[in-house]
C-alpha cells in the first residue's frame, strides 16, 4: 500500500473568512476570496507564502476560478464573483482588475472557467451566462427553472451542468448555439460534479441522497441514507471513486466494475463535525477532507477507511484545493489562515 503524509510548508494569515482558493496553473500562486469580500493573491516561493489584498466584493465574495492554461489560453488571470453581483477578472501578473462588471442585481454566486480557459460561466439566481476570457458576453442561456445552486464543467468543456431544485440543467456547447436538456429529479440538487472519464454526473441533494445519471444512456440512480443534505460530491481522477459528504459523514462509492448500485459504500471515519470541503488529488488516489472540527484528513479510498494522516488546524476548515502539481495543497480556515501542505511519500 502506498503511504503518504501531509507536511505543512508555509502559511499566511488573511484577515477574512476564507471562502475558497484557486491555484494558478504553475502551482506558484493562489487567489483567495473572503466572506467579508476580500480578494487576495498569494505567492508561494520555496517555503515562503506571501499574500496581498487586491480588492473586494462589497458584502462578501462568493466564488473564484483561475483560468486554466491551454494552447488557446495563457492561464494568466482569475475571476471572482460576489454578493454585490459583480464579476471581476484579475491579472495574475500585477494583481490589477482587468475588468469589473455587474451582470446581476443580486449576487453572482458561481463562476467557473471552461477547462480550455477560453471562456467563463457565471450563475446569478436562475441566469447562467457564458463570457469570453476577457469578459465579453457570449451566451446568456435560457433561465434555469430555479436558482442555480452549483455549476460544473465536464473535463472536455463540452457540457456545463447547473444544479437546481428539480435536478440538473445540462448545457451542451457544440456547434454555434448551445443546447439544453434537463435531467429531472424531484428534489433539490445542491452540488454537482462530472466524472473525469465522462461516464456520469453526480449531484448531492437536499433530501440526504446522492443522485447520478449515466451520460451515455440517461439512466439515473439514487443512493440514500445520508444523515443530512449532501453538500459535497467529488470524483477521483480516474472516475473510479465518488466521495460524498453530509454533516460529519464521508461516504465513498466505487464506480469500478458494475458500478455502485447494489454495493455497500465505504464510510470514512474520523470527522466529528460537519465536513466543509473535500478534494481528490488531480492525478492520484488521495482524498483530502476538512471540517468544522478544525481537522484536515488525508485518505486513500479503496485501501483504508481510517485516515492516513490528520492535522488539527487553528479554526474550522473552509477550503481545501490541490495544486495542479499534484503535490501541494492549500487549506483555508474560517479565521483567515491559509496553509500550504505538501504530500510526502513515506517508506513502505
Amino acid at each position: 500500500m502506498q503511504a503518504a503524509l501531509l507536511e505543512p510548508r508555509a502559511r499566511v494569515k488573511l484577515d477574512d473568512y476564507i471562502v475558497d482558493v484557486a491555484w494558478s496553473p504553475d502551482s506558484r500562486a493562489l487567489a483567495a476570496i473572503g466572506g467579508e469580500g476580500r480578494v487576495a493573491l498569494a505567492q508561494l516561493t520555496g517555503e515562503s507564502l506571501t499574500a496581498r489584498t487586491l480588492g473586494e466584493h462589497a458584502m462578501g465574495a462568493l466564488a473564484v476560478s483561475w483560468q486554466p492554461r491551454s494552447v488557446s489560453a495563457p492561464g494568466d488571470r482569475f475571476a471572482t464573483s460576489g454578493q454585490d453581483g459583480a464579476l471581476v477578472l484579475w491579472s495574475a501578473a500585477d494583481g490589477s482588475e482587468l475588468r469589473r462588471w455587474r451582470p446581476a442585481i443580486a449576487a453572482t454566486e458561481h463562476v467557473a472557467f471552461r477547462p480550455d480557459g477560453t471562456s467563463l460561466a457565471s450563475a446569478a439566481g436562475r441566469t447562467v451566462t457564458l463570457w469570453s476570457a476577457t469578459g465579453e458576453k457570449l451566451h446568456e442561456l435560457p433561465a434555469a427553472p430555479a436558482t442555480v445552486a452549483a455549476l460544473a464543467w465536464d473535463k472536455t468543456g463540452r457540457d456545463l451542468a447547473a444544479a437546481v431544485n428539480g435536478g440538473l440543467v445540462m448545457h451542451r456547447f457544440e456547434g454555434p448555439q448551445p443546447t439544453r436538456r434537463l435531467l429531472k429529479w424531484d428534489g433539490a440538487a445542491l452540488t454537482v460534479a462530472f466524472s473525469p472519464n465522462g461516464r456520469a454526473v453526480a449531484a448531492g441533494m437536499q433530501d440526504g441522497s446522492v443522485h447520478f445519471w449515466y451520460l451515455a444512456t440517461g439512466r439515473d440512480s439514487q443512493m440514500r441514507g445520508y444523515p443530512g443534505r449532501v453538500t459535497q460530491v467529488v470524483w477521483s481522477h480516474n472516475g473510479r471513486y465518488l466521495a460524498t459528504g453530509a454533516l460529519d459523514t464521508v461516504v465513498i462509492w466505487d464506480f469500478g466494475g458494475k458500478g455502485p448500485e447494489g454495493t455497500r459504500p465505504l464510510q470514512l471515519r474520523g470527522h466529528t463535525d460537519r465536513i466543509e470541503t473535500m478534494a481528490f488529488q488531480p492525478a492520484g488516489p488521495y482524498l483530502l477532507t476538512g471540517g468544522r472540527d478544525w481537522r484536515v484528513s488525508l485518505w486513500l479510498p479503496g485501501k483504508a477507511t481510517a485516515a492516513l494522516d490528520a492535522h488539527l488546524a487553528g479554526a474550522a476548515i473552509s477550503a481545501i484545493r490541490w495544486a495542479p502539481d499534484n503535490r501541494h495543497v492549500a487549506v483555508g480556515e474560517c479565521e483567515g489562515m491559509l496553509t500550504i501542505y505538501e504530500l510526502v511519500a513515506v517508506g513502505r
Partner: protein
Amino acid sequence: MTSRDRIPVTVLTGFLGSGKTTLLNRILSENHGKRIAVIENEFGEVGVDHQLVIGAEEELFETNNGCICCTVRGDLLRILGQLLKRRDRFDYVMIETTGMADPGPVAQTFFLDDDFRNQFVLDAIVTVIDARHIEEHLDRMQEPKEQAAFADVILLNKIDLVAPADLERIERRLRAINGTAKIFRTRNCDVPIDKVLNVGAFDLGRALAVDGAFLEPEYPFEWAGLYELAAGRYTLRTGAEAHAHHAHGHEGRACHDHDHGHAHDHAAGLAIALLPAGGATPEALAAQIEPAVRVFAEDGVRVDCGGVVQAGAGLARIDVGHDGSQFELVVTQPGPYALFCEHAPAEFNLRIDGLQPVAERAFASHHHDDEIASIGLSDPRPLDPKKVNDWLSYLLQSRGADIFRMKGVLNLRGEDRRYVFHGVHMMFDGQLERPWGGAPRQNSLVFIGRKLDRQELEAGFHSCLA
C-alpha cells in the same frame, strides 16, 4: 458552538402594503446597537445603505413527497450559509417574506436542518396587518389567515384608517385565528423595538405566555352590561352615527346590508337577552352568566326594526341589517337587568337611550368563523407523561400538516417542574422548565391550525389524565 452563540432570526410577514417595509426601515434606522442582516424577498424597498441587505428569490425545497411539514426554504439555506462567513459583521437576522408567503417553510428551515439549528435560532414570526384591508383579505384568501396563524407578534397597522368598532371586530377575528399572538395596534408600525426583536417566542426557557382570556370557557356572547331599569319604555338603538365615518364608504345610504364581508350572520339578527339580576354589582352580573348561557341556547324571537323587546323575556334576535335600527324596550318589573349581547355592542353601536351600564364585562370571542382558528384547553388535573407523549406523537403524525403552531405548559404527574412545549407543523420541541413552586398547577394548551376539531382535541387531552 453553544446555543448562546446562536444568531436570532426574526421573520417578518404581511401583505404588500401592510407596512412591513416601514417596520423594517424603522428597526434598521433606530439606534439599538444591533448589527442586523436583512434578507429581503421584495427588492429595493429597504432604504438603509449601511446595513447588510441581501435580496433573494423565495424557493421551496420539498424534501418528502411534497409534504408541507418537510418543506424548507432553499434560498434561506443558501444565503444564511453565506452569511455565516461574515459573522463578526452582524448579530441579528431579519427575513422579510413576500406578501403571499407561507411562513411555515421559513420556520421549518430553522428546525429541520441540524446544521442550522446549531447556528440560528428563530426568535419570532412578526406579521404586519393592514387593518383597512384585512377583512376583505381574510374573506378571500388563505395566505393572510396563515400569516396571522403563524404569528408570535401581530402588528395591527394603519388603525387610523379604520373606525374603532371595526378595529374591535378585526382584533376579535384575529384573536380567534391566533389565540396566543401578542397584538399591537399601530398607525405606522410605531411599536417599541423590543416588542418585535428578541421576543424569544421559540425559547422554551422563557415562560410560555398563553392569553388567560383565550383559555376561558366558550360563551355564546361577547359582552354583558348591567343596567338599573325603572318600569316603562326605553329605546334600544343600533348603528347610525358610529357608521357615519365608516372606512368602507357607506355614507349616504340610509339602510344597507353589511356587505363588507365579515362573517357574522346578520340575517339571523343580533342575539340579545335582558335577564333580571340580583343587584347592581359586578358579582350580580357574574351570577347571571350561567342562566344567560341557557337562554342563549334558545332559538329566540326575531324582532324587526321598530319592534318590541321585553325585558326578562328570553332571547331576542334584533334586526341589525340596517343602519339606525331602533327597538322598543319594555320593562314591567323594575330593577337591575343584565343585558347579554352576542357581539360587542361597539360593533353595532348598541345602546339604550339615556342609560349607561353600571357594570360591564367582555367575554373572549370563540366564533370560529374562519377555517383557520385557535383552540385552547385548560385543566388543572395532572397528566400521565406516557399518555401525553403518545397523544402528542399521534397528533403530530396525523394532524401535523393542519396544526401550524402548538404551545403548552403541562402539569405532569409526579413532576415538580412545568413541562413546556411548542411545535410548528410536525416539528416539536419540549422540555422540563421552572418548578411549579407555590403556583397553582395548570395545563394550558393552544393549537392553531386548519379545521381543528375541539371535541377531538379535548377527548385526546382527557385520555391523558393521570
